């Protein structure tokens, strides 16, 4: 089983990327964890460029999603929504609609913010976008508000209840991926 982790934040010290790393720690040893690091290289979506072969950064992203059994997203909140770079990347992955790499893919969304609410609106927005693309969005929300006070210097979540929520979300994601693999088998 392979889980692709996509952080909507590009910043090197990103709390969302740290949240994904915290999730990695909670995965069973047999699950491969791959952190996607190509978001910044994805060009702005332009239908004129959406041809074969796809731009290399797009092909890499689509390939990474296609190879994964599940995708875990962590998003910050910019102006009550998801970062433009993340939405842009999803717009690329969503094409072509009928066969896009996210179609039926089990996905889960978590988020961190420096403010109080842990990117809840952005998470809701991201779930909506992923569902519209055709992904299998699992229930579960992890909203890490006041992130600087809840993540230690090693990127570990210091809050037990958040840690539990993250664990539950990961389990729901892996269950969904497992049940999908049985259907496809």
């Amino acid at each position: 089983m392979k889980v692709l982790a996509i952080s909507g934040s590009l910043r090197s010290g990103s709390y969302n990327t740290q949240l994904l790393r915290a999730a990695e720690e909670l995965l069973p040893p047999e699950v491969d964890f791959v952190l996607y690091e190509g978001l910044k290289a994805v060009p702005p979506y332009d239908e004129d460029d959406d041809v074969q072969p796809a731009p290399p950064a797009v092909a890499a992203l689509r390939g990474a999603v296609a190879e994964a059994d599940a995708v875990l997203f962590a998003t910050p909140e910019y102006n009550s929504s998801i970062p433009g770079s993340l939405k842009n990347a999803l717009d690329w992955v969503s094409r072509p609609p009928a066969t896009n790499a996210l179609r039926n893919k089990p996905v889960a969304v978590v988020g961190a913010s420096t403010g109080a609410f842990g990117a809840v609106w952005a998470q809701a927005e991201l779930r909506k976008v992923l569902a519209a693309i055709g992904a299998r969005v699992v229930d579960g929300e992890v909203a890490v508000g006041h992130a600087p006070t809840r993540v230690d210097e090693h990127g570990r979540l210091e809050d037990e209840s958040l840690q539990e929520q993250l664990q539950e979300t990961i389990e729901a994601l892996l269950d969904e991926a497992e049940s999908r693999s049985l259907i496809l088998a």
Partner: protein
Amino acid sequence: MSITTDTRQALPVGTWSLDPVHSTIGFEVDYLAGAFRGQFREIAARLDASGETPVIAGSAKVASVDVKDENLSAHLQSPDFFDAERYPELSFESSEIERQGDRLTVRGGITIKGAERPVELTGTITDPIADPYGGERLGLKLETGINRNEFGVDWNSALPDGKPSLADDVKLTAELQFVREA
């Protein structure tokens, strides 16, 4: 009243297979300011009126949903709507068929997205005619209304005034031509 009994007729005895080309299974639901319709290209059905209790059973492949936009078709097959990967078919099987004149009432169970619910379809029957190809065929026109939320098909999108853009109530229609099995 004896009139009801007097006008009640049996279904044409025999087993009947679907002519899928000249049959349609579709749906209609209010969306935004009008009604949205779609149909399923791949359908199957059979009418077995050979025994004491006639049975109509049919199914439609979710992946064959036919709407005018490929993005919409893809969305309809996603977990937001029918979840075609997990639930590839919609199906119906009757438990009871009542006929009065050319009116039919068909009760049975409909399964959408893995959820089976009781349903009553009403409509008409066209008694067997000889077709130009040496066969014998009859026609059924049936419809019913369901609440899609009962089947977990609960996607919606809010209008600017906060009201839902897509109605809960969906009309299902079946126009079926059956050919007598040899």
